[in-house]
């Protein structure tokens, strides 16, 4: 794309609202105008990043927020550069919903990535530190070993999580699936440490019961997958 064109008036781009910036970006690429495309994308990212960051801070450990938000913005811009995936709405709420959906997918992918099986997964026995009822030592499931059981465990985990209230679900995601200390979870959620421990304990008990009911636990296998964020899953929207 040509990048040496007569100077543009950047104050005009700075005055565009998010819908207009998006439109301008699409138009600039369609017209092969690299300077305008670049600045529109940059101003768009500059405008939306604070809000996406605030949303992410409520759901992710601080060290993950930056990367997840950057990746979400990257996906938004990337989707806009393909006719098959670009935003096709007409209003600001529609644009927001589209961006928000991408942010949630990116967050879900992050949780999925950090909760990989085998060396990163939890076993049922590790939920409460005790050996399994049948005395078998635990083993982690890998995708290669038992994909069906893994899918079943993920479904059961999602069902148990869905039965929690939103604030209990948040505690579980932070404490159990992101492995944060109870004190840190309490600090982030505004609950007491005792309350956090209680929620964790109740979740583990409910999950164990649910898994045992499916027969998955009885096989001695029991990798606990990461909490799945709700909504559509991986990939661009």
């Amino acid at each position, binding site marked *: 794309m040509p990048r040496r064109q007569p100077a543009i008036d950047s104050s005009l781009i700075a005055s*565009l609202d998010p819908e207009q910036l998006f439109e301008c970006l699409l138009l600039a690429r*369609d017209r092969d105008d690299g300077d305008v495309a670049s*600045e529109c994308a940059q101003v768009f990212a500059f405008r939306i990043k604070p809000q996406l960051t605030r949303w992410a801070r409520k759901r992710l450990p601080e060290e993950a927020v930056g990367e997840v938000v950057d990746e979400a*913005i990257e996906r938004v811009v990337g989707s806009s550069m*393909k006719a098959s995936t670009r935003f096709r709405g007409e209003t600001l709420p*529609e644009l927001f919903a589209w961006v*928000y959906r991408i942010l949630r997918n990116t967050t879900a992918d992050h949780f999925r990535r950090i909760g990989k099986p085998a060396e990163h997964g939890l076993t049922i026995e590790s939920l409460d530190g005790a050996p399994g009822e049948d005395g078998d030592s635990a083993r982690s499931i890998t995708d290669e070993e038992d994909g069906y059981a893994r899918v079943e465990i993920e479904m059961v985990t999602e069902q148990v999580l869905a039965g929690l209230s939103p604030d209990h679900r948040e505690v579980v995601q932070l404490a159990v699936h992101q492995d944060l200390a109870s004190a840190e979870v309490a600090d982030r959620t505004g609950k007491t440490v005792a309350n956090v421990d209680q929620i964790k304990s109740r979740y583990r008990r409910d999950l164990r019961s649910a898994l045992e009911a499916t027969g998955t636990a009885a096989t001695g296998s029991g990798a606990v997958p990461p909490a799945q964020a*709700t909504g559509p899953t991986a990939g661009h929207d």
Partner: protein
Amino acid sequence: MSEIDRRFTDFMTAWLEGAQPDRDSVMSGLDEQGQAELADMIDAFTDQNEWLEGGQVDREEFLAALATDPLLQRIGRAAAGISGTWPAMLPRLRERARLDRESLAPLLADRLGNPEGAEKIADYYHRMEWGDLPAEGVSDTVLAAIADLLDTTAEDLRDSGQADPPGGMEAGESSSAQADPTAVELVFTRTATGKQSPGVGEHRGDLPDPGDWDETDRLFLGG
């Protein structure tokens, strides 16, 4: 559009028009998960929403962010380039893997079975991060090797490299009809007194002709 997205846009459209839409009504009929998701969207939109405040972006703040936030520079390169979002994605993954570009190149050369070609491979990789390399020319072999080094998949890399080729529309045409055409069209008016837009990156020279390709060229240009 999903049911939740539809309810959200209806609710927010009414809200933006000054109506007082009822949250209970918009949630009616959704399961607990759907209600939580919809509430989350509504809260996120209405909570300190700079989008709604509108107005001119502070130029000094923007330039300061441009100087300090790598994402903004990378997004600019991606938007103006021919490599999809590789200019943003590859550095991000590389940083996550704690690899600088100088360290990655010899590793990539090894994986491609061409350690002697590290310098040329480094140059091609640099072009990928700079948005200067046509993504469709990069082979699956190269993407698989990079994916392995950066803990991603070749499929994700291929998808991220895809973008509709720039150009193909005449001035005056619009790809869609949403925004105020006057405000957007004015942007494309060049003025002699306007400031140069933030640089996207220098073009790094011509690519070799197919007749002059060696194996490394073929891996990065031949698709």
